[in-house]
């Protein structure tokens, strides 16, 4: 009885926060939805319909917690093909059919489907999709609409379009191209500027607001017509009444053709892969550490896709970028997905005429940026660092996808990977794979003893072909337990597996568990086990030999203050995971570590990232970590500011400290155990904070984390930070 009631209470308590984050997400979903639909040659409203139907259906029936659904980047390429080959009416039928297939995948518990694809092949496929989006939209962004039969032609013509754009003499086109270039600039530099007020509104929404404002300025300020050529404006945003009146009649005429089912399969494949990968990534970001019910989510997505297709919308998939924004804005349950849909309905209901004031090139700039992110050169260098053969797989998939199609591309990627695996393991013979493919090669049991840890041993080989077996076992372990994964009986472990294992390690570390991999040291990393190179070989360390000026100053500082200094990158950051600041962030590494001889106070530079894909931002900062030998309450102390005022409205509560109005006004104190925190902040501690410079201070119960800015600290700031930490430690102990 009581827990149920608490659930409802907790739900309503979290509701304001979820409404807020749903609102922020809808700000991104609106322009993206319009853009993705137009990039797929569908009417712009189709993307919004997908987001609305998806948001409502999946938030009610889905099995994940903080994901956002809507039209996906990956599907643009497939939808484009489907719509151009089948025609819009039949394409809607294809979308509905793929929804039914997704539903079936959910019912047959095929959530593991995405695990059967090697990660390099998926990367290659995503890069190809990125290039398809980028290639097509780049021309529209520069107000130079062209239509070609082959996707590669679009890419090859980019230089010509650039040349044409410089020589425009039509004023309408010049303005249109300017709108595109300015929008692209906003997308590129938005994440570089870390300003609280600017960041309140996501970059795509800035583009929408600025371009609508621009249009109104011309209309009401200058009493002129909008200078951007009318054919480069968003057209055909119907009102709600019109959408309902115009529900397309599905055309079942040509559903028995080979082409139709080929398209349906491609839609289903990409929709499921994109959704499953996104759900996996979002689960890692969930601050409440819940596990998504993947199969239930697939069923809900399938149903939503059927509904969306029926109403004239695109496929509904789980989308990573919007989901990670949702998590960052404090979305904590499925209601935020629902509210994102609701806000989209409100936008269309009240602002549908305003939306036609957005220039097409501005919207396409958002997509060009998205496409670039998917196919950025960084992906290639990352592949190369894993192994040269990964590049072969990557490029084979990429080129075949571009030249022939998605399904053929991913199949080519899988086959190439398999051939490369056999070639690498030629000393063992192909028999290793064929003979042992179907064997139940994973053993898992609970070891006896006090620790009660799980022991998992894998035999023969472990690659993308049989990873699902290992995954099934690993998924059956609660994430707060200790796991030892033993590869010593394994002749070959591929990069896909190691990448997934790394994901598990992060997940377990965040949920107070421990995930150890043993038995890989015996594998030869260069010839016998090249894929492991990423994990076994230390990262080539150039810094070691040539310290930067900051580093050498830090070294002298260490000497003067009697500290130990090490500039090396360290991946072992589990001691930071229990701080709530890192709940929704991924720590890449720490470096330039200064540590006291007694190991209690350490100061280091840290690199972490927020969000995923297009919302991903890498942040570097300098932090101080104080290890305490006694327990203190968990809390977060921050400066009172505008953002905090906003989030206070959304449900956080500041803990007041009696008789210290100045402190309570200036600082913003958060934590669960209010009485203990109020006790901890006695006169001395409060006075210390009042009279010293401001830092963000966080406690995880037995350690403190102190930092100032989301950038690296200068030497002077390092000294101040260290001094602050030392004195704070004295005050509280």
């Amino acid at each position: 009885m009581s827990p149920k009631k608490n659930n409802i209470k907790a739900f309503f308590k979290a509701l304001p926060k979820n409404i807020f984050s749903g609102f922020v997400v809808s700000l991104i979903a609106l322009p993206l939805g319009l853009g993705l639909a137009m990039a797929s040659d569908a009417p712009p409203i189709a993307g919004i319909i997908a987001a609305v139907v998806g948001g409502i259906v999946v938030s009610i029936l889905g099995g994940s917690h903080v994901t956002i659904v809507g039209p996906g980047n990956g599907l643009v390429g497939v939808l484009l093909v489907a719509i151009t080959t089948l025609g819009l009416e039949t394409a809607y039928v294809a979308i509905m059919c793929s929804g039914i297939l997704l539903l079936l995948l959910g019912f047959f518990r095929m959530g593991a489907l995405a695990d059967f694809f090697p990660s390099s092949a998926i990367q290659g496929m995503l890069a190809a999709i990125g290039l398809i989006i980028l290639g097509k939209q780049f021309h529209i962004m520069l107000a130079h609409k062209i239509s070609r039969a082959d996707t590669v032609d679009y890419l090859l013509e980019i230089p010509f379009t650039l040349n044409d754009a410089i020589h425009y003499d039509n004023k309408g086109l010049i303005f249109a191209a300017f709108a595109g270039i300015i929008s692209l600039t906003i997308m590129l530099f938005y994440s570089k500027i870390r300003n609280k007020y600017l960041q309140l509104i996501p970059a795509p929404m800035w583009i929408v607001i600025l371009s609508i404002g621009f249009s109104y300025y011309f209309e009401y300020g200058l009493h002129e017509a909008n200078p951007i050529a009318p054919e480069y404006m968003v057209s055909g945003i119907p009102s709600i009444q019109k959408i309902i009146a115009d529900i397309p009649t599905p055309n079942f005429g040509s559903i028995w053709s080979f082409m139709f089912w080929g398209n349906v399969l491609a839609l289903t494949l990409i929709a499921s892969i994109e959704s499953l990968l996104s759900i996996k990534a979002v689960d890692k970001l969930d601050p409440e550490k819940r596990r998504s019910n993947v199969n239930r989510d697939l069923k809900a997505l399938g149903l939503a896709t059927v509904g969306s297709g029926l109403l004239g919308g695109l496929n509904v998939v789980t989308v990573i970028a919007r989901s990670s924004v949702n998590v960052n804005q404090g979305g904590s349950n499925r209601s935020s997905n629902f509210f994102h849909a609701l806000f989209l309905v409100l936008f269309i209901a009240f602002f549908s005429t305003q939306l036609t004031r957005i220039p097409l090139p501005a919207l396409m700039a958002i997509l060009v940026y998205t496409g670039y992110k998917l196919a950025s050169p960084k992906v290639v260098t990352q592949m190369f660092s894993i192994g040269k053969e990964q590049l072969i797989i990557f490029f084979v998939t990429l080129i075949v996808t571009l030249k022939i199609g998605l399904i053929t591309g991913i199949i080519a990627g899988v086959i190439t990977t398999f051939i490369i695996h056999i070639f690498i393991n030629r000393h063992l013979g192909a028999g290793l794979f064929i003979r042992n493919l179907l064997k139940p090669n994973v053993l898992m049991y609970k070891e006896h003893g006090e620790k009660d840890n799980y022991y998992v041993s894998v035999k023969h080989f472990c690659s993308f072909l049989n990873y699902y077996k290992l995954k099934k076992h690993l998924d059956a372990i609660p994430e707060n337990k200790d796991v030892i994964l033993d590869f010593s009986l394994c002749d070959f472990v591929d990069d896909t597996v190691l990448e997934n294992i790394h994901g598990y390690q992060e997940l377990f570390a965040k949920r107070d568990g421990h995930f150890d991999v043993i038995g890989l040291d015996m594998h030869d990393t260069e010839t016998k086990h090249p894929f492991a190179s990423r994990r076994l070989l230390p990262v080539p360390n150039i810094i070691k030999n040539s310290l930067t000026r900051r580093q050498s100053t830090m070294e002298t500082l260490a000497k003067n203050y009697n500290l130990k200094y090490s500039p090396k990158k360290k991946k072992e950051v589990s001691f930071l995971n229990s701080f709530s600041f890192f709940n929704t962030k991924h720590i890449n590494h720490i470096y330039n570590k200064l540590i006291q001889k007694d190991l209690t106070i350490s100061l280091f530079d840290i690199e972490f990232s927020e969000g995923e894909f297009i919302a991903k931002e890498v942040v570097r900062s300098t932090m101080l970590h104080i290890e305490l030998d006694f327990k203190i309450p968990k809390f977060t102390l921050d400066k009172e500011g505008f953002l905090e005022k906003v989030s206070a409205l959304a449900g956080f509560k500041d803990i007041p400290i009696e008789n210290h109005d100045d402190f309570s006004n200036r600082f913003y104190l958060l934590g669960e155990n209010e009485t203990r925190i109020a006790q901890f902040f006695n006169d001395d501690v409060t006075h210390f904070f009042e009279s010293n410079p401001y830092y963000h201070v966080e406690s995880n119960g037995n350690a403190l984390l102190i930092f100032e800015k989301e950038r690296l600290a200068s030497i002077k700031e390092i000294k101040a930070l260290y001094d602050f930490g030392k004195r704070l430690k004295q005050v509280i102990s």
Partner: protein
Amino acid sequence: MPIKPFKSIGIGVAYSPNLKANLFEAARLSVFFEAKLVLIHVGEASEEKSKLLSTILKSFEKDQLKYEVVFKPGNPVDVILSISEEKKIDLLILGAVKREKIVKYYVGSIARKITRQANCSVLLLIKPSVERIPCQHIVVNGLKDPKTEQTITAAFYVANQLNAEKITIVEEIGQDEIAVKVDDDKSLRRATIAKERIKLRENSRVKEIISHIPKEYTQNKIIKLQPIFGKRGYSIGHYAQISRADLLVMNAPSKMTFWDRLFPHDIEHILTELPTDVLILQ
């Protein structure tokens, strides 16, 4: 359950480089079990062959080893099987090749054919050696099967004769026994509880079996129960391999058809990948 001691031990003798090692293992076991050793050679008898055997076994004279040599030409499988019947052999020792090629898997090597058809217990040796490698850890299956009680009892008897200190009884539990499928946190919790319950049930079943075994066999032994959720027959082999067991004791298979070989299960998994020495009890 009464203990059936091994009174006579048989071994197929081929004049191969492994001969001495095989004979030494067999003779040692006969001494441990106080059993008579029957050497079966498929082929014609000759002075030379008998002499070779007696010189090899000379060092066991001080242990009062009784042995008999039988020569009979014919098909190796038939000869060995018929002589085991005839001489009432309780335990047949076969040398095994550690990993067999895929082609042989379908045809079945001589050793495997005998294993499938023999009416007596069979011991498959993977690394016979002249020097004795002490047997310290025995892994035995604790499947829910009518034969299991006999098997566990026999394992304790063997452990006692070979002075093995540790016995692990592995209960293999099929995944399908857990009614709950893991999807999210809630179902994971339910599945974990269901597993714990099954484990307790299996452990109490095996403890019941152990309580029936005479005290003199179970005392001074380290007994460990290890429930494993996994594929029957395969997991125990895998476990024996990683726990570095010296001997794996298994129930004899019930029935073997062509399909069982095509879609291997239970003991067939062990036969394709012998993890250690395997004793199959009849």
